[in-house]
């Protein structure tokens, strides 16, 4: 099943791809191209079991795209392909292609390490390291060999402010991150993910373990972050998808049933199955 890419009326308004992606991946400038990730005829297998079937879609730049669908429908699998995290699992294979800013993420010239620096990820269960708050945020800089104290300090403040956590932790940056509350930990993980300025931020059910207030803060944050980052979020929460996404894809049994503007998906879906799911008749 191939979903038609949504009409792109905002094409001309989108800023061209920011310079850093080109620095690392060395891709030619693609003026006026708003789709940062393009998926074409993508099939994915865990061993012999097919998890995704012929997925084709475009993720627009600096927008929030939500993947919805019942458990096991493949939305997380697709998300984890965008930064090749699925390759940590034995026996996976794929056909078709995923392009980031015009270049296949499996191109031999694309290093998986560089890809993951461009495509950051926030996980379902917050997973701060057993290190200080400060060291958690600068992890991606440390592994890249950055040592200048000023750069690290600046990154910590910028990232924590970006993740709306700075005011709460600025006095205890060197205390263990494991002493934070659940919502704070998840915002720390967001700060850690945006510390090295990725182009895309993947979020795998980032609020599923949080209370409504912490969830609200993360959703506000997502709205702020989309000024700078392209966000792809997997969610089980329909309200969340309507509240914070611009585009929405409905997955079912490994297929992308429908992909469109969120408003369209929730008000006038073209597919009966989408309508049944978003109105709560099955799922």
């Amino acid at each position, binding site marked *: 099943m191939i979903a038609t890419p949504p009409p792109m009326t905002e094409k001309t308004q989108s800023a061209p791809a920011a310079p850093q992606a080109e620095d690392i991946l060395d891709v030619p400038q693609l003026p006026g191209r708003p789709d940062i990730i393009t998926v074409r005829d993508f099939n994915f297998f865990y061993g012999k079991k097919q998890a995704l079937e012929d997925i084709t879609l475009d993720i627009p730049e600096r927008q929030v795209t939500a993947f919805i669908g019942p458990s096991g429908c493949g939305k997380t699998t697709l998300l984890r392909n965008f*930064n090749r*995290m699925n390759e*940590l699992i*034995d026996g996976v294979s794929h056909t078709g292609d995923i392009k980031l800013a015009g270049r296949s993420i499996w191109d031999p010239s694309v290093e998986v*390490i*560089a*890809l*993951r*620096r461009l495509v*950051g*990820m926030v*996980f379902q*269960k917050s*997973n*701060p*390291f*057993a290190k200080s708050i400060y060291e958690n945020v600068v*992890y*991606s800089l*440390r*592994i*890249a060999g950055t040592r200048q104290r000023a750069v690290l300090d600046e990154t910590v403040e910028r990232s924590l402010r970006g993740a709306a956590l700075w005011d709460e932790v600025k006095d205890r940056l060197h205390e*263990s991150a494991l002493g934070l509350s659940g919502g704070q930990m998840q915002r720390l*993980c967001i700060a*850690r*993910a945006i510390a*090295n300025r990725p182009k895309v931020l993947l979020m795998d059910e980032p609020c599923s373990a949080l209370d409504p207030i912490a969830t609200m803060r993360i959703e506000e944050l997502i709205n702020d972050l989309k000024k700078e980052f392209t966000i792809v979020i997997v969610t089980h929460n329909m309200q969340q998808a309507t509240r914070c996404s611009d585009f929405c894809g409905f997955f079912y049994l490994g297929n992308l049933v429908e992909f469109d503007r969120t408003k369209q998906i929730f008000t006038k879906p073209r597919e009966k199955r989408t309508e049944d799911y978003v109105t709560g008749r099955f799922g």
Partner: protein
Amino acid sequence: MDNPITHSPDFFEDNSPESTKMLGRSLFDRALTALCVGLSFLALVPLASILYLVVKNGLPLLDWSVFTQLPPAAGMNGGGFGNAVIGTLTMVGLALLMAAPPAVLAAVYICEYDPKGKLSNAVRFAAKLLTGVPSIICGVFAFAAVVLATGKFSAFAGAVALAVLMLPTILLTSEQALLGVQRAYREASYGLGATRFQTISRVVLPDAAPAIMTGIMLAVARAAGETAPLVFTALFSQFWMSSLMEPTASLSVLIYNFSTMPFEHQVKMAWTASLVLVLLVTATNVTAQLVFSKRHA
């Protein structure tokens, strides 16, 4: 405030026909709990009685001079076992240096790099077999491999025997420690663009370190008390150690020698040596735990 509406006096009894069995079930529950607590205390009995005996018999002769003097000749009084303390520390320390790095690195390989590979399975199988090998066989091996080759009994040969003994324990406990590191930590690290080496060295190993350390300490404690492998390799010596390539005294062999002697003083000294051995092992253990729990926090 008095409430005119009252519940039936049978409130707790009338909700199910089996309600009378409730008492029986909770009695059974309590009896089993009591049994578990009782058996736990029973398991402490051997440990407590050994400690009691060692302290009671070992304390009378324990003073500073046992660390500074050489063992008394058969039938003589006085003296100490300073050379055996040094010998044990040297051989166990050397064995640790020989066994721990390869064992931990092998554990990293079989756990992180190729967990399902043929080599990993072979290493795991060999390590499990090795843990079951009697320690005297390790002694015979080191005798053949080192003593016969160098032509003399030595501390080095003793250390080799102990290292062979420690290797599988450290390897298998380290593997368990690494398996215990949450997958989420690894994913977070890879997700931030870390290489496998960076993920292992910055996230996985620090997280597993306390558990790895516990495994190493278990191996050290076991090796420090081993007699059989040392009888074949380091033998014993009445004198202070001056090189790694000569027969060397150890606490365990001294305990073995002295406890079988027909002289009261030597038997008492064997008890004191036992006490010192227990204290040494405990002290190393506690220190290691303290250092690592502090560094981890």
